[in-house]
Structures are given as structure tokens and as C-alpha cells.
């Protein structure tokens, strides 16, 4: 079984979590003029990387918090996890 270390609760099985998409996507700034292409990129377009990837997960059956997970999409190896409000260097 794949285990994910929740920054709040500790090591938990993946079945307690729900995948929430790419964590590197930033919402365009409020009141800033942006093009349709930029909106399109924010809402739909994803890179679907092979390799290290920063993802959002929600600990849905645990503390219900959103977290960031650095995971290798080809090996499923999890390197680090962060709170949702933590900046990742």
C-alpha cells in the first residue's frame, strides 16, 4: 500500500486521501488583465509530467486538510509533504 505522510496526522494510507491536482498552478492575480490563453492554462492545461511532481491532496478521511505532496509520477515515490500554506523551495 502507498503511504503518505500527512503533515498534521503522520503516516497514513493513501486510501484516506483524495487527489486534488497539480499544486504548482497559481491562480492569476485578482483584478489583473489576463488573456484567454492564461485563463485556459490556469483552468485546463496541465503538463502531465513524468517524474517529480508537486501535487495537492486532501486528507479526506483524516484531518480533512489540504496538503502538498512531492511525488514521482512514474515510481510513485513520495519525497516530501507540506502543509497547503507552506511555500515549497
Amino acid at each position, binding site marked *: *500500500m502507498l503511504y503518505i505522510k500527512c503533515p498534521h*496526522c*503522520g*503516516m497514513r494510507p493513501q486510501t484516506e486521501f483524495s487527489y486534488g491536482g497539480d499544486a504548482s498552478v497559481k491562480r492569476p492575480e485578482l483584478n489583473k488583465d489576463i488573456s484567454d490563453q492564461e485563463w485556459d492554462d490556469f483552468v485546463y492545461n496541465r503538463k502531465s509530467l513524468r517524474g517529480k511532481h508537486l501535487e495537492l491532496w486532501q486528507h479526506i478521511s*483524516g*484531518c*480533512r486538510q489540504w496538503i502538498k505532496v512531492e511525488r514521482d509520477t512514474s515510481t510513485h515515490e513520495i519525497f516530501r509533504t507540506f502543509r497547503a500554506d507552506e511555500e515549497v523551495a
Partner: protein
Amino acid sequence: MSSLVSALAYVHTTGQFGDYEGKNENDLLKISENKNLLIVQVVQYKNSTLPFQSIDIDGLKLKNEPLSVVSNNDTRFLWNGPKNWLLVSNKKDLIKSILDKFKDTDFAVTDLSHSRAIIEIEGQDVKEVLKKGCPFNFDSLEKNKSINSTYNGIALTIDMLDDNPNKVRLFALRSFGESLYHSITDASLEYGFNSV
């Protein structure tokens, strides 16, 4: 006047079940339904800066420490998540002081008393029963710790009441209570259990 029907009223029957023959009754698992508890969820708003540590309910103070349970004989505060607690108590009238002390400007207080099914299991094989449906490492679950997890896909809260012998209290959504009860009793058949 309407009478209250407990969450497991239609499935919980007393008696001995499973592989109980030839075993000392004291060594069997004990499974019971716990009714009439006050269950209140308290969540502090993200923008609230009020120091929750100073709030005293039934002589207990909240602790924002993962998996921790603060307790006395009647009341238990279970950590559910960051600034999120489940208050469980035998004292039904505690709701007045909870509503009084957790002001709605800083806290969301929700009475969940009638929306949970509560199963208590006691005995040396409690953790073995839990391991059958929940992938959490129960060897690390000590007395006065609680976790949220799933049991055969059913979301539940597990509160470790005691460790000598092991005693846990399981909270599930009331509508999932009967399914959880069947899962737990199925898993307990191997050890034999006394339904009380």
C-alpha cells in the same frame, strides 16, 4: 411523546457469538453500543486569533496537538484536525456551557449527538479486529489518542479509551452505523465476542 431509537437498535443483539466456546468469558471481546452521549464538533475559524487554550469546559482545556485526547471521567476532547475538535461527554447539559464559551464569532459549534453511531469494543484482540479493516498502524495507537480513518471504506473516528485491556470507541456516521457494526462483528467472529 416520541421515543428515541438508537443508531444500532435494529442490529445490535446481546449474546455470545463466533468462536467463543471453551474460552473464558473474560477473554472474549466485548462489543456494545454506546448511546446518549453528547457529541459536539468545535472548529475555530481560520481568521480567529482567540487563544483557545484559555477556554475551560468541564475542567478541560483544548489542545491543538495531533491525535491527542484531553479527558476526565465524563468528557473527552478529541483532536480531529488543526483547530478542530470533537467533544464527547456523558453530561448532556454541557452543551449550554459549550455554546456559551465558544462564541460564534470565533468558533463553529455543531451538535452531532444524533448523527453518530457509537460502538465500543473491549478486549485483548481489539487491535487485531481493527487491523482487519483499517490500514493504520495500530501498534502506534496509545491510550488517550484518537484517529480518523476508514474501516472497510467507512469513515470513522477511533478513540483509544484504555490499553489494559484495550478499549476503543468507534464513531461513524449514523447512516453507516449498521454497516460498520456488521463489519466489526464479522471481523470479531474469529476471536469470539460477547455482545452486551
